[in-house]
């Protein structure tokens, strides 16, 4: 696709067009999975392990099956044999099909508190719940492996006896809880440190957090007598769910139809199949449609939160502030089966810094916790918390302004990412220049004690993957975009803009339809900041295909060659004699009812370049010196968005991501006691309320991407990357203490201050 360096005048792109599907959402009409009701539908409930680590000696379901109203009970024994359960499933984090099978329902071992043991379908939720009480499970309780550092010790209990560390070095002889040890490096680290005037090393820790989507995970499955399965489900990617079901239930892909319902937030947490296989098994066994809706406690315990981390950062710098070397060690907790976001964290950690000598080591470690899923820029927030906190300390030790320090070391086009790919056009320096001029950075802090300002950077490379779209032109000249691309929050809106822009028709003439896996061609999931970017490119291409087809018909109508036909604003004409023209409606009607048949444009992209995204956040905070409580006074997010296709939608992404990052920074965490989560409610898992956040000001910087539609970059993920570090840096200046752990709860800040004053 052509590079967009010059901005064309646009009609819809860049405009604040209204959200396509807002009306049904403000009137309560939008249908989410839990809202569905099918004739004869049963209610499913899942029995979950109360133990984080236990052998399952025996499961007796007879009493449950005998309870009136119970129509099916399933356990791991109901899964087909694992012959077809081979390979890896993508998404933002990889998972092997065998591991997915193990996660779906515990086989001989419960690997985390909340691990599914059995599932029941009954005529009412109350009966299903009562049936769960009647299932007898004999456990042999094992000591839980509570965190990644403990899991790495040689005498830690093993979660899986067949797990051997994947590494580039020698193949290990003994199994381990370390699934992968990866390394990426450049230059000569020792030399880099030797050149430094200052070498600084610090360590950081972050805890498990949850995406916190408001819609609990839910699904409806209906197995037909002929073996076909239809699923209505809340997911970020229907084709991934179909593939998972195909593998787990041993079905050809054509026998599984996945219909996406509206999705009440995903943020990376609704990618892999969790309830879908259980609902399908129950439906198959009972012959009825089965709905399963998780309780909030189940969502916390049994979906896929974000990885806890232990991170060490060591850098060398010259007196003038130039970095000479950097080493980062990332230990990331995957939970019950391998797949922590070590790739994302490795890419993010040193992304903004120009380094000739660097090395990143990363460990993907299993523990007795729920298996992690992606969470908005997976791995990015902990990585940036560590590195951006560290860089502030280095700048301070060198006596250099934190913004100047970052500008001095900032990467530019042609520099290399940590995986050695060269950056194409990027906007980091432009973002920093904007910060330098902006009042959020230049104006003095509002007067008052215990106040401070912090800055931090964020990065996300963004996925591209495969995207496919069809654009249908109807007989009256209106158009419908059809695809299997799930709309998380704004896809329909932005894609309507692209179609209207390209076909040069009114916005109202374009409708957007999200289809199912049976009736739309493959497209990858909605995640990884790829939807507007990569799917937008596919839609753009589909529109070009539509115009090419229309041009042929118009040429036929005008008895001319297609290459002589021009198009604008709903009208085709001959370049050499503009009087000879025909309107879009006529061409559309003719193509539909006569000529060669209806117009259907197809667009697909598989190999877009990445469009890397940089952000900088500036936070002003006040710390209550007596209680340690942090109050955010002002928050500004700067971000290179390439081109804001719809500024309202983009700001929404920036504000939402920042808000999640702020929660991660200050109040959110899984409180585990011996592997059992003690705060699985919205009361004690504290997500920010409206009273905990200020207005979040957005400064959108537009440095066009090298590829993709209109120069736009993905925007959804990078806003969650900088907040924790920006706040940690602000807290340091406000309260004089450096927090090395998230979250920075009042008690943690208070203790840090106590420890400092004890030393002082």
């Amino acid at each position: 696709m052509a590079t967009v360096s010059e901005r064309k005048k646009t009609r819809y792109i860049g405009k604040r067009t209204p959200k396509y599907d807002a009306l049904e959402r403000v009137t309560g009409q939008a249908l989410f999975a839990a809202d569905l009701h099918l004739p004869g539908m049963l209610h499913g409930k899942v029995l979950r392990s109360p133990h984080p680590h236990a052998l399952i000696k025996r499961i007796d379901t007879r009493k449950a099956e005998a309870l009136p109203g119970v129509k099916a009970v399933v356990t791991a024994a109901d899964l087909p044999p694992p012959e077809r359960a081979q390979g890896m499933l993508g998404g933002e984090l990889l998972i092997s099909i065998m591991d997915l099978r193990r996660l779906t329902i515990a086989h001989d071992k419960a690997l985390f508190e909340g691990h599914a043991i059995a599932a029941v379908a009954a005529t009412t939720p109350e009966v299903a719940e009562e049936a769960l009480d009647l299932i007898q499970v004999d456990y042999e309780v094992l000591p839980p492996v509570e965190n990644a550092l403990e899991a790495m010790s040689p005498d830690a209990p093993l979660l899986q006896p067949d797990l051997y560390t994947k590494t580039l070095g020698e193949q290990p002889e003994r199994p381990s809880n370390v699934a992968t040890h990866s390394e990426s490096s450049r230059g000569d680290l020792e030399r880099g440190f030797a050149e430094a005037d200052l070498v600084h090393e610090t360590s950081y820790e972050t805890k498990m957090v949850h995406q916190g989507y408001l819609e609990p995970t839910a699904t409806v499955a209906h197995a037909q007598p002929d073996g076909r399965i239809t699923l209505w489900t809340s997911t970020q990617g229907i084709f991934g769910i179909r593939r998972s079901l195909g593998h787990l239930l041993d079905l050809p892909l054509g026998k599984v139809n996945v219909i996406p319902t509206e999705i009440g937030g995903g943020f990376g947490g609704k990618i892999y199949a969790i309830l879908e296989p259980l609902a399908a098994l129950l439906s198959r066994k009972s012959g009825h449609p089965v709905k399963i809706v998780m309780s909030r406690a189940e969502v916390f315990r049994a979906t896929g939160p974000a990885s806890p981390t232990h991170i060490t950062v060591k850098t060398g710098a010259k007196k003038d502030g130039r970095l000479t070397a950097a080493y980062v060690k990332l230990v990331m907790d995957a939970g019950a089966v391998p797949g922590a976001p070590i790739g994302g964290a490795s890419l993010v950690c040193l992304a903004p810094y120009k380094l000739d000598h660097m090395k990143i080591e990363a460990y993907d470690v299993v523990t007795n916790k729920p298996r992690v899923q992606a969470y908005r820029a997976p791995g990015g927030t902990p990585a940036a918390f560590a590195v951006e906190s560290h860089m502030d300390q280095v700048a301070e030790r060198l006596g250099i302004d934190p913004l100047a320090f970052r500008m001095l070391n900032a990467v530019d086009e042609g520099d290399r990412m940590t995986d050695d790919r060269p950056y194409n056009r990027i906007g980091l320096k432009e973002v920093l220049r904007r910060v330098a001029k902006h009042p959020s950075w230049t104006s003095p802090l509002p007067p008052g004690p215990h106040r401070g300002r912090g800055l931090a950077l964020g990065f996300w490379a963004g996925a591209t993957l495969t995207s496919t779209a069809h654009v249908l032109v109807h007989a009256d000249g209106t158009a419908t975009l059809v695809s299997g691309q799930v709309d998380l929050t704004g896809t329909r809106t932005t894609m309507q803009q692209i179609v209207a822009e390209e076909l040069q028709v009114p916005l109202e003439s374009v409708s957007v339809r999200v289809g199912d896996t049976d009736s739309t061609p493959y497209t990858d999931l909605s995640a990884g900041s790829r939807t507007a970017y990569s799917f937008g490119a596919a839609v753009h291409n589909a529109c070009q295909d539509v115009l090419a087809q229309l041009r042929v018909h118009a040429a036929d109508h005008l008895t001319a060659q297609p290459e002589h036909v021009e198009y604008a604003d709903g009208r085709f004409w001959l370049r050499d004699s503009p009087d000879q023209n025909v309107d879009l409606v006529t061409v559309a009607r003719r193509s539909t009812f006569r000529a060669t048949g209806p117009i259907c444009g197809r667009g697909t992209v598989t190999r877009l370049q990445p469009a890397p995204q940089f952000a900088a956040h500036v936070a002003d905070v006040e710390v209550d010196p007596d209680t340690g409580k942090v109050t955010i006074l002002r928050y500004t997010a700067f971000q290179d968005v390439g081109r804001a296709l719809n500024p309202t939608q983009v700001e929404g992404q920036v504000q939402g991501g920042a808000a999640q990052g702020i929660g991660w920074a200050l109040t959110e965490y899984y409180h585990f006691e011996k592997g059992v989560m003690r705060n699985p409610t919205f009361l004690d898992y504290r997500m920010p309320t409206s009273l905990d956040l200020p207005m979040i000001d957005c400064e959108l910087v537009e440095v066009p991407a090298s590829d993709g539609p209109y120069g736009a970059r993905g925007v959804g993920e990078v806003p969650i990357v900088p907040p924790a570090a920006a706040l940690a840096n602000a807290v340091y200046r406000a309260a004089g203490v450096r927090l090395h752990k998230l979250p920075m709860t009042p008690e943690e800040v208070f203790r840090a201050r106590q420890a400092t004053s004890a030393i002082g």
Partner: protein
Amino acid sequence: MTFVANFSDTTLRKAVRVVAKLPLSFTVNGEPRQVFVQPWQTLLEALRDELALTGTKEGCSNGNCGACTVLLDGRAIVACCMLALEAEGQDILTIEGLAKDGRLDPLQETFIEYGALQCGFCTPGFLLSARALLNTNPAPNEQEVRLAIAGNLCRCTGYDKIVRAIQAAVEREA
């Protein structure tokens, strides 16, 4: 309206589960409704399962997210923490009743215009909390707006555009 019985006996309790639906008469979105509910059904379950008013959402089931906010005699409450039978004779407004005579409530309009919703799952609850606020306080400041919606969690927006949309509706209604 008194239903006295003793169902501590297990067999009887099971029987109750099947048969013990009791009549409930109340007003929903301006219309008198009569449904039959079980004593342990919450108002949320009655609205969603018996009246098919699925615009009221279940996000946490313990009053901590506000997704099931409805108006009870004009006041915001969480429908997950109230038994359906408690609503006997009372007036309930759900999201389905917020638009009147085919006209959107000003809050619905400004939520759309200001981009105050993303996934939309929490939106019905926010609209009803905001409606309850504006019914009693026609000129709230930002702090009052934030306080009124502090029992409603949103994970998509960071609340910024929601607060602005409510403030815009205040001006529109002035």
